[in-house]
């Protein structure tokens, strides 16, 4: 006997992600899911973004790591609410983990949640968390060929941050080739050149994000 299922493999994750999304909409919170490799500068970018936007918006951070609370400690040190999720080996965040993290945040008081996904260019891309937008960060030392090796993550991103541009001279990064590859993969995504630790380019990036946050308020 044949049984037609026509059911998404990630049905459970997707259903819970939709619940998260509805909750964010009801509370007028903008949620940004940040995807990138380990060490590319996710936490540094989050810290720079907080500095740029904290006067206008109330911000919280959800940190996803396989282990440790190093990153959430850095955020808390800036006087910003941070929740650490340890995935215990899992290579990506799932929507139920976000749901649990939300229990300790005061959504009524928040405008923006920055979500640092597990450092990985592959696995997080297929998992909807209920976010308003995904962005990806590539850092210059990783090389200009990454869009060709990890197309998926560049395609789900609404914007691409090219971080550590201050190191461009040392790493022989072919920015033209990089920009063209990203344009082929995701023609509508803006690319923000940035150095999170020096502040270069942070304002343009923060303004793009601020527009998005205002739009859901």
């Amino acid at each position, binding site marked *: 006997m*044949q*049984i*037609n299922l026509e059911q998404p*493999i990630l049905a459970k994750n997707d259903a819970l992600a939709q619940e998260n999304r509805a909750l964010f909409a009801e509370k007028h919170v903008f949620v940004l899911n940040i995807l990138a490799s380990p060490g590319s500068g996710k936490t540094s970018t989050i810290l720079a973004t907080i500095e740029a936007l904290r006067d206008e918006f109330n911000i919280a951070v959800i940190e996803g790591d396989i282990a440790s609370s190093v990153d959430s400690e850095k955020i808390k040190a800036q006087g910003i609410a941070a929740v650490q999720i340890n995935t215990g080996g899992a*290579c990506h965040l799932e929507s139920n983990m976000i749901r649990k993290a939300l229990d300790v945040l005061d959504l009524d008081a928040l405008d923006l949640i920055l979500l640092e996904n597990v450092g990985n260019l592959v*696995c997080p891309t*297929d998992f909807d968390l209920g976010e308003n937008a995904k962005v990806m960060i590539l850092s210059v030392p990783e090389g200009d060929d990454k869009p060709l090796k990890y197309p998926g993550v560049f395609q789900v991103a609404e914007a691409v941050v090219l971080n550590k541009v201050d190191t461009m001279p040392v790493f022989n990064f072919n920015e033209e080739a990089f920009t063209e590859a990203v344009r*082929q993969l*995701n*023609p509508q995504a803006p690319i923000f050149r940035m150095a999170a630790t020096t502040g270069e380019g942070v304002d343009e990036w923060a303004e793009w994000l601020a527009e998005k946050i205002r739009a859901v308020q």
Partner: protein
Amino acid sequence: MHELGLMTGVMSSVTEAARNAGAVRVTDITLSVGEMTEAIQDALEFAFEALSEGTMCEGAKLHINMVRPKSRCQECGAEYEHDRFHMTCAECGSPFTELIAGKEMQIDSIEVDLPD
């Protein structure tokens, strides 16, 4: 990679559907997987073999339809197939396009044996 997690989800949905139908054994499972997802066919097959051992799915044939990416141009209306790397409209070159196939991760159907 997360194929093991994906197949765990497939197995539990399939087992539930088969049990609800009163089946004793699953003989075929058909999935559709878009080429624009991160799921790899070989890894899915490997995960299925490992997970199905000793279950009602053991020995079932896993059919995976890999779905080619396809987009529709929002400017000229063209629908065109493309590879993973080139999204712009094949007809007019516009960047304003919408993906209409290639992101699937779906259990299409299963074939089960009912008790005699």
